[in-house]
């Protein structure tokens, strides 16, 4: 029989594709269903956040822009930026503000992880968990809405404080949520996490060994999924995270190899449980009285300095590198985006897998294009 002539096929996945979580374009080189190479192309959502920041008249005005970076975890972005500027100004924020910030950031982490695991189920082909996650995420958004009027882009955490005080029933609402939520996690586990097909699709797929994860400077659940015990909330505490007891969840390779898609997924599920723990403690300790705007400066004019402040957002280490020239507007604001760094591991871990695995891998990295492209 004569040898059949075969060749590789190059195919574009995205920017309009249901599973690239936005406008990511992945150039796939395929040999049948096997992926020979996967090259991510970014930039379709570039909105010049960093350049915009330089022309703001006030440091406070940058906050709506950082909201729009990681638009599914806006609170965490604001928190990182506020902390960076506060360190430059060397101001102490009131106790009550710190507690509200932590509660908000952890609620945001739960909301963001809910979206991540929900859409991950969708990527694998299970539609129902996605909507169950949205149902529960809705409750968090309601709490946010009652606090600041917005559901996604809050402009809530300001430099030195908050834009509004929380409503009087805030604690009750949060307590309601932390009572309501843990049983639902069990529901997700029954429906998706321990489903045989789901495990087959995600275990041993897209294995990211710990040393590769470190070489690529991955962070957040992607790094912890590879078994590296690193969480800025504990390793480099900011705000008041050192006052709370919580475990850092790492992937253990329960269903396959350490660092596979299932590990990255389960890290997110278990982190939600830990976030609930933090919120429980924070609600108990939170003082009832206090002016949340007491420390908000009238004019922000930091000394000539530069600073890098990092926080643990739901997606990993979000750093802000801010240079001040002593004027009212920042000279340079750079965001160190966890998604951008995490996405860079994609080619390394997807060679030799199948098309369906690419979808699983992209989903398990949990990227938000708004943050990658900024």
């Amino acid at each position: 029989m004569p040898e059949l002539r075969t060749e590789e096929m190059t195919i574009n996945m995205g920017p309009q594709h249901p599973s690239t979580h936005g406008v990511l374009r992945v150039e796939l080189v395929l040999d049948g269903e096997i992926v020979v190479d996967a090259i991510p192309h970014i930039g379709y959502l570039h909105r010049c956040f960093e350049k915009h920041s330089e022309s703001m008249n006030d440091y406070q005005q940058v906050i709506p822009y950082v909201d729009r970076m990681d638009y599914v975890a806006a609170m965490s972005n604001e928190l990182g930026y506020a902390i960076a500027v506060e360190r430059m100004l060397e101001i102490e924020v009131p106790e009550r503000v710190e507690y509200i910030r932590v509660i908000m950031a952890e609620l945001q982490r739960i909301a963001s992880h809910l979206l991540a695991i929900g859409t991950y189920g969708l990527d694998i082909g299970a539609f129902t968990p996605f909507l169950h996650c949205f149902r529960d995420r809705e409750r968090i958004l309601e709490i946010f809405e009652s606090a600041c009027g917005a559901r996604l882009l809050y402009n809530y955490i300001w430099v030195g404080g908050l834009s509004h005080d929380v409503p009087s029933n805030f604690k009750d609402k949060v307590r309601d949520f932390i009572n309501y939520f843990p049983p639902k996690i069990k529901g997700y586990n029954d429906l998706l996490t321990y489903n045989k097909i789901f495990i087959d699709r995600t275990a041993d797929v897209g294995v990211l060994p710990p040393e590769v994860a470190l070489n690529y400077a991955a962070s957040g659940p992607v790094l912890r999924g590879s078994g590296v015990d690193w969480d800025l909330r504990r390793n480099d505490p900011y705000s008041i995270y050192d006052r709370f007891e919580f475990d850092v969840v790492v992937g253990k390779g329960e269903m396959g190899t350490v660092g596979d898609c299932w590990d990255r997924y389960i890290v997110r599920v278990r982190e939600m449980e830990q976030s609930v723990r933090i919120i429980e403690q924070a609600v108990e300790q939170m003082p009832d009285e206090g002016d949340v705007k007491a420390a908000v400066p009238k004019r922000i004019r930091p000394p000539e300095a530069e600073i890098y402040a990092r926080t643990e957002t739901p997606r990993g280490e979000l750093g802000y590198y801010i240079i001040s020239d002593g004027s009212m507007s920042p000279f340079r604001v750079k965001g160190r985006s966890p998604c951008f760094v995490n996405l860079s591991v994609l080619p390394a871990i997807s060679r030799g897998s199948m098309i369906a695995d690419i979808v699983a891998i992209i989903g398990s990295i949990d990227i938000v294009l708004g943050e990658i492209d900024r």
Partner: protein
Amino acid sequence: MVETLEQFLPHPLLAIIMHAALPMVIVFPYVLFAVWLERKVSAHMQDRLGPMRTGGWHGWSQTIADMIKMIQKEDIVPSRSDKFLFKFAPFLAFMGAYAAFAVIPFSSEYIGAHLDVGAFYILAVTSVVTLSILMAGWASNNKWSLLGAMRTSAQIVSYEVPTVVAVLSVIVATGTLNLMTISEMQTGTIFNWLIFSNPFLLIAFVLYFISSLAEVNRTPFDLPESESELVGGFQTEYSGMRWGMFMLTEYADMLLVSLLGSVLFFGAWNSPFGDFMSGPVWGVFWMVSKGMFFIFVMMWLRWTLPRLRVDQLMDVCWKYLIPIAFINLVLVALWEMLF
């Protein structure tokens, strides 16, 4: 049945056409209903309501409105596609699915064609769907479509083997390929149904149901059109009513495998209570109800399970279903010999 019609109609040809069109009376309303039901079932599983406005009561006319919308849509044919194949594929798909209804005994009085090889005919004619999907994928001139079409052909060709072997177990037990005869053999109460007549036929039914899920491209085997990977698989370039035809085929196929399942294992048009509620018209009722039950199970599975990967799909078929099906066939035959 044709003879009865001939008495009332002026021309024998008209009687034949009417006779041939009769399953449409069930298939079209069924598709409209099933799409609505799918939306409702998925909605209630997902803690939401689904369509509620169109037509009043629980959005009952949503699919009718959708169909009117689809008919009105612009008929887009990609400029660099193979135009004839592209336009023809959806109709071929539906033809394949519809032709199979000819040998389904809807009631003790109505069967499209009294074929002695009914079961064989169904298995043969449903394979046409593969051809049309391949045609659609190739003609679209789109890499995603092509990938989807390739997957489909591999999947359907593979899963035909366990389906055929499972059907063959019934044939071994009954000794006939005529679906009407198989139905008549199950007359009586629920215990006369084939699934209870032989323990190994129960296994055959499970095999049949699993592989028929793959045959009609339903979750967890919905790889051909897996929207989260291949955008829309072979349907990517289709829109409007041509896409609607594929949808129609998918639901018609679901009905077909469900009806065939109930004919082969669950007593066809026979009432489960013996003489109670039995008769030609009740027959249609029982047949459609049994079919709808399996369709509901398919929907239930679809909104619960994730999707397999293409290699796992082949593993399930060649490493598990086919060996089990063959061993089971031997066991069915042994049981029939011994008892």
